[in-house]
């Protein structure tokens, strides 16, 4: 019995130590970086200030935050609408090529993001330095995630409900808006939250498609950490992490499985 308890303690400490180093500690380090004006040779920085956070109020960073909001917001809204529509077709309509459609929806996940971005640049060269190309790129990146969550919820709706409503004379549109949509709500909200977090921190697509007036927070994090200051990059990173964590909390409140 004592032996079992000992084994259990070892197991739990192994897990908590590895999780600490993988998830919690990196976050603390980023936060420290954003709060210290300079980090000398000491183990933990000795002086703290909100210097980098105050600098985030400069127009350049506000512009980036607004851009991020516009691009991620539109991409996620479009992706949710499209995923709901395709999930509806796959669940409640009969047609040939269902597997092909499913594969088309999931495939952007299996292709490197820089490759997707390059394809868009080659196909739509005139859209460079416009928000449109960024929105299309982000749409492609988040759609597998929203689609999987929404389709997962919609697939579990009882088909008899659909048939019962139909036999009572409800039109297809009424069924879709009054029965299917409310039942899919949890999947839609979870998908939106997760996709928003994913899109805001996306780098591979954005770094190839951004232009002089359409850049995002993730691009600025890259440029600041390379040629500017790591403290600024860390402050922006903390903002992104905070948004992402909020998204995760929403998803778990809704009880949806996150396997993206």
């Amino acid at each position: 019995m004592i032996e079992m308890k000992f084994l259990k303690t070892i197991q739990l400490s192994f897990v908590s130590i590895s999780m600490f180093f993988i998830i919690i500690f990196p976050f603390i380090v980023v936060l420290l970086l954003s709060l210290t004006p300079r980090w000398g040779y000491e183990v933990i920085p000795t002086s703290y200030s909100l210097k980098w956070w105050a600098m985030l109020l400069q127009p350049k960073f506000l512009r980036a935050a607004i851009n991020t909001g516009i691009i991620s917001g539109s991409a996620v809204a479009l992706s949710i609408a499209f995923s709901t529509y395709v999930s509806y077709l796959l669940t409640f309509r009969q047609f040939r090529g269902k597997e092909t459609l499913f594969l088309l929806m999931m495939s952007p996940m299996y292709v490197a993001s820089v490759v997707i971005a390059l394809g868009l640049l080659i196909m739509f060269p005139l859209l460079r330095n416009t928000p449109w190309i960024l929105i299309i790129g982000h749409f492609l990146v988040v759609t597998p995630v929203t689609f999987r969550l929404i389709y997962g919820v919609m697939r579990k709706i009882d088909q008899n409900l659909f048939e019962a409503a139909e036999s009572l004379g409800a039109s297809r549109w009424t069924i879709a808006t009054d029965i299917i949509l409310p039942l899919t709500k949890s999947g839609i909200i979870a998908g939106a939250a997760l996709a928003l977090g994913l899109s805001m921190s996306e780098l591979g697509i954005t770094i190839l498609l951004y232009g002089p007036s359409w850049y995002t927070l993730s691009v600025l994090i890259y440029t600041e950490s390379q040629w500017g200051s790591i403290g600024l990059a860390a402050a922006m990173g903390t903002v992104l992490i905070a948004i992402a964590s909020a998204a995760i909390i929403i998803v778990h409140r809704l009880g949806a499985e996150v396997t993206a």
Partner: protein
Amino acid sequence: MNIKNYIILLPAFLLPIVFFVTPLFLTAINSLSSDHGFTLENYVRFFTSEIYITSIINTLRIGFFSTALIVPFGVLIVLAVRKNKRVRNFMKILTSIPAVFPSYVFAIALIYMYGSAGIINRLFLSLFNKELPTATILFSWQGIIFANIMFFMPFFIAPVFATLDTLDPSLEEAAQSLGSHGLHLIRRVILPSLMPGILAGGLLTLLMTLNVFGVVLFLGWGKTYTLTLALFSEMEYFRPAMASTVAVIIILLSASTVICYRRATRFFEGR
């Protein structure tokens, strides 16, 4: 099937084809273009240049070694918390964080944890008067594997947990009452039933570590080239044709790796 049905289906197929399939197709065509019309010149240049060959090798070893280390380590973690329901739920939330955690911010954190100016390295230095081995290898391919293990581990654990949830607890009880305990129980009962999740998670991990971009951009830029980084630097120098060639190689490499993976794991699926 009437016309109305086709109209309602049309956008569903059209959107992915216009915005995803066609651009990839055009990329493949673009990779053949050169100063002398359509030739294989870019591919010849790719396979005769040392930097591209190195980037293929780096990509392959980063993908292979990261996955080979993540899978057993992840399975160990899952087995360790398998029984404790509260820890399991807590872990589920924790493991879903990296899905939206920016990978490049994670890379910055790693540099300031294990790099030569990092917290852990400084602590190590002040305690033992010696640098951590990570201080020198963090920016090499070994360092990127180290970063990948930490960043992609939760992505692997999540689907395995999902499989664990679908398992019937009475299965384990039945096995125990039949005299199966400890290692025997894990090896003969639990691992085989977790296998679908482990294989799916392994494939996802392999694809993500082969196509990793954020982490290598921050750690490997100028030091360790992978294919995704090579594509990015071709675009920085405004060479879209060569970038397209790299893109085609990336797609072919991931596709063939997936096929090899499927072949290699068919043995486990049979059980």
